[in-house]
């Protein structure tokens, strides 16, 4: 069965369970009553038998005895030496004589159509014999008792059931109220508005646990959204600067007719800025293109040493310009499954950084070797990274102290691309740096 509301569902099952319990309860009571009535009849019959026996012993006349008002509603027979010597009532007791053989006293119920309750009481004095009692309409008596109880229960039980369901409904409302609060707050939560928090319930119970974990979830969402927003604002900031130059340069240049040289210079500036935008966009794509899921399809067997040499060759001019010497300290041929584009980007970003942040005439040391794991190590003698900023340099768009690096072009994406690439290859990166002494970057595959 499908229920739209938890409340009806709980109430339905609660009602069903209660009804079943009540029915079982009724059956038990009925059974108990029946047994009880039978027992009380048996008791009565036994008392009568004792009464008769006592009187016989006292030599009272049987006739007188049987007319006694105590025995009015019973069929009675007195048996002496296997024969009925006296009988009162319509019942033919002869058919029961067989019972006498092995039992002293016993009680028989519902024998066939006629018999309802027969009590046989054996006596030895003043003669060997028995007294038979028959009580008719026992069933009617039992039914009568049961009927009374039934009537009471018929009225009581629906009232009881109704009260139980009513109380259960109130209780469910009370529980559901806190859940409704949660639903209402959850409905108010948007990516743009995560300031909502579900009010804490008064008591320390499961609902409070639910509220707590819900609030925790909101907090986690918020921090995730904050990171995204920061990233968005960083991207737009980085893109806006070159855009401002392009827009402004065009506006000023078009203000009036100018010399060809002016247009040339202006278009050159615009071209440079457009290139910067392209670099940012390419880098961002590089950051988001690959995921842990799709990276492995791009893996192929790469020779890291030749990739590294190719990359170093691209930086020959820059190394010459700053008169920086690049030394290969330990260089082995290493082959591994990797994405060659990402690996080349990791190498080139790290070499680029080492050159950019080194003063003229310094050295750069690179090692690549395999010793259980594959190690790539690059050390420079550059300006270094202040200790307190080491943890942040891997973040997107993070640049150490804007002012210090103003003359050095960059967007703060290089190291985060390295970090991303390293993670995609299940490798580790360690950065160690001393201000004004140099930086050491170690990647372990």
């Amino acid at each position, binding site marked *: 069965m499908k229920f739209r509301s938890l409340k009806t569902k709980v109430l339905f099952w609660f009602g069903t369970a209660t009804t079943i319990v009540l029915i079982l309860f009724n059956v038990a009571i009925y059974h108990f009553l029946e047994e009880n009535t039978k027992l009380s009849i048996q008791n009565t019959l036994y008392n009568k038998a004792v009464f008769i026996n006592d009187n016989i012993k006292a030599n009272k006349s049987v006739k007188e005895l049987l007319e006694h008002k105590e025995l009015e509603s019973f069929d009675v027979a007195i048996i002496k030496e296997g024969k009925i010597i006296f009988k009162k009532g319509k019942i033919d007791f002869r058919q029961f004589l067989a019972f006498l053989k092995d039992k002293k006293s016993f009680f028989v119920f519902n024998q066939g159509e006629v018999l309802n309750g027969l009590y046989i009481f054996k006596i030895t004095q003043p003669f060997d014999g028995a007294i038979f009692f028959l009580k008719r309409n026992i069933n009617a008596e039992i039914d009568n008792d049961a009927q009374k109880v039934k009537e009471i229960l018929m009225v009581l039980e629906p009232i009881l059931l109704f009260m139980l369901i009513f109380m259960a409904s109130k209780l469910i409302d009370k529980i559901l109220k806190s859940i409704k609060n949660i639903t209402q707050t959850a409905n108010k939560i948007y990516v743009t508005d995560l300031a909502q928090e579900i009010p804490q319930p008064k008591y320390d119970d499961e609902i409070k646990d639910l509220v707590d974990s819900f609030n925790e979830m909101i907090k986690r969402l918020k921090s995730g959204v904050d990171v995204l927003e920061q990233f968005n*604002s960083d991207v*737009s*900031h980085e893109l*806006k*600067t070159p*855009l*401002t*130059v*392009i*827009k*402004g*340069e065009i*506006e*000023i240049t078009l*203000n*009036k007719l100018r010399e060809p040289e002016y247009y040339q210079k202006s278009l050159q*500036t615009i071209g*440079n*800025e457009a290139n910067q935008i392209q670099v940012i966009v390419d880098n961002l794509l590089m950051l988001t293109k690959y995921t842990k899921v799709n990276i492995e399809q791009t893996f192929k067997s790469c020779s890291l040493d030749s990739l590294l040499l190719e990359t170093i060759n691209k930086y020959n001019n820059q190394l010459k310009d700053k008169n920086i010497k690049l030394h290969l300290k330990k260089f082995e041929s290493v082959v591994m499954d990797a994405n060659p584009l990402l690996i080349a980007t990791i190498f080139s970003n790290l070499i680029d950084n080492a050159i950019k942040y080194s003063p003229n005439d310094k050295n750069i040391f690179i090692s690549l070797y395999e010793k259980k794991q594959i190690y790539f190590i690059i050390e420079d003698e550059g300006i270094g990274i202040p200790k307190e900023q080491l943890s942040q340099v891997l973040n997107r768009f993070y640049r150490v102290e*804007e*002012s*210090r690096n*103003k003359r050095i072009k960059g967007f703060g994406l290089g190291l985060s691309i390295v970090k991303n690439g390293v993670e995609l290859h299940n490798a580790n990166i360690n950065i160690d740096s001393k201000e004004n002494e140099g930086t050491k970057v170690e990647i372990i595959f």
Partner: protein
Amino acid sequence: MKILIVEDDENILSFLKRGFEEEGYIIDSSSDGEEAEYLITTYQYDIIILDWMLPNLSGIEILQKIREKNILTPVIMLTAKDEVDDRVLGLTYGADDYMCKPFSFKELQARAIALYRRSISSTSNTITIKDLTIDLDSKTVKKADEELSLTQKEYELLLFLVKNKNKTVSNSMIEEQLWGNEEYINSNVIQVTIYNLRKKISKDLIKSSRGLGYKIEV
């Protein structure tokens, strides 16, 4: 009108300078926060165009410092941040206007003129002194409906005197206002400019007190 442009991106600074100079404004520029603060506290500008992110001292910090020193020069903040909170922060710290990058140069110029106009407490784009009417937008001066042909420097000098009306301005103040810090002038140029301006607009308007300077009395 003398404008200080503080912007650390050399390309943005370059087109802003060219744009304003071509429109005849006198431009000083800086790409460093501390230097900018020094310039603002040392020299007098009509408008300051201030970038938010600067090395050494941010735009907001400069703004705070100069407002504390009671320098009330109108400031237009330039920034790539476009969150409402940032804009509010800028305005709370005493910026007079706010432009988000990328912006239109024409709009920046129009806002600069509007701020300047407000700073000389005029509500329209024309200033009238006796029979002179100065139109700030078209940079023309009319004397009793007859247009005067003033050179750029003469026009700037007239505006400077009008802005400081009833006050005496010295030669050095004029030099500082009409020529950027990078320009070196032979002081005779100021006298010649004053002479020509007085000749064009009538001698009585600009009073000269020997050794002290000049003033327009209204």
